[in-house]
């Protein structure tokens, strides 16, 4: 009931093209989930580990890191800390999409399904209603596909362990790039983003995973709000 009502209005608001795009990303996430389940079990972890992580953590990059460290004989506590570092970017994401998520119970469910992909889909829409629909459809869709993928991958074992062979490692950056490009048409945003990119790339060799992307926020120092934007955006 709680879920069905907003789902219906999400479905009405989404236009067919956007729904198809989101569906494609959900599908791709499902395939990565397959490989994640297979890699985890192939690495000697019991099936419940990748499945539990996918439901309660639900953050792909940190999950890969976690099982990678544990399967290699590392401490689960070290894996947990590494995973948390990778997920720090969710703080600024949450600050940006707070209105999109909504209040009350939605804040809890909506926070849990926050991913790079659905944040990018939301930022790519103009109206709040569309942002909301894109965020929720993406979040719920990815949650379902990811978890199904992990279970099937874990059960099937070594069917798909190398998604690089399909080029999926190139597909995900391309997805995010396509979604942020319209925002980068604004000159000042573009300058901030480019400085951020340089800082992130320069710090990647030295910092633990997750922190370089956070360092990119330095780029915001180069952001100048366009004159009159405040009046226009009202």
């Amino acid at each position, binding site marked *: 009931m709680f879920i069905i009502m907003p789902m219906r209005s999400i479905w009405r608001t989404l236009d067919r093209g956007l729904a198809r795009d989101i569906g*494609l990303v959900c599908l791709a996430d499902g395939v990565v989930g397959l490989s994640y389940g297979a890699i985890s079990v192939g690495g000697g972890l019991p099936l419940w580990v990748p499945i539990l992580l996918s439901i309660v953590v639900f953050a792909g990059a940190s999950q890969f890191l976690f099982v990678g460290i544990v399967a290699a004989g590392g401490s689960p506590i070290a894996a947990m800390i590494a995973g948390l570092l990778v997920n720090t970017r969710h703080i600024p994401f949450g600050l940006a999409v707070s209105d999109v998520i909504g209040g009350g119970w939605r804040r809890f469910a909506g*926070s849990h399904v926050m991913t790079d992909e659905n944040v990018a889909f939301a930022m790519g829409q103009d109206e709040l209603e569309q942002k909301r629909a894109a965020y929720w459809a993406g979040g719920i869709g990815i949650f379902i596909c990811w978890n199904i993928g992990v279970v099937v991958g874990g059960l099937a074992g070594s069917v798909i362990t190398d998604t690089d062979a*399909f080029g999926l490692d190139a597909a995900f950056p391309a997805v995010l790039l396509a979604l942020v490009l319209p925002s980068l048409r604004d000159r000042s945003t573009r300058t901030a983003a480019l400085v951020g990119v340089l800082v992130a790339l320069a710090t990647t060799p030295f910092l633990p995973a997750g922190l370089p992307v956070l360092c990119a926020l330095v780029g915001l120092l180069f952001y100048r709000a366009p004159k009159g934007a405040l009046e226009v955006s009202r």
Partner: protein
Amino acid sequence: MNTPVLLVGILVLAVGTFSLRFAGPALRSRFEVPERAQQLLAVAAIVLLTALVATSALMDGHGPAGVARPAGVLVGGVLAWRKAPFVLVVVAAAATAAGLRLLGVP
């Protein structure tokens, strides 16, 4: 394998990750955020996502990512810039990287 420690690691990661996600919405519901700051927060998300694109396209761990993946992302990026359909962008990026690897390009 020490199951209790593993379980604790997973559960703390889960609670911590949820807190990181929940922090933004919880903070913003408590304070009136000026319009100017809201705009800056939106730009911050774009800066982060762009940095994520660059690092995931060009880097693998702490080193460079090889050729196939950046080439795939580049093809996708050019298509997106020319306003090609999203599906084409994604499929072309994946196909380029997969094709190059099939040819033995790292």
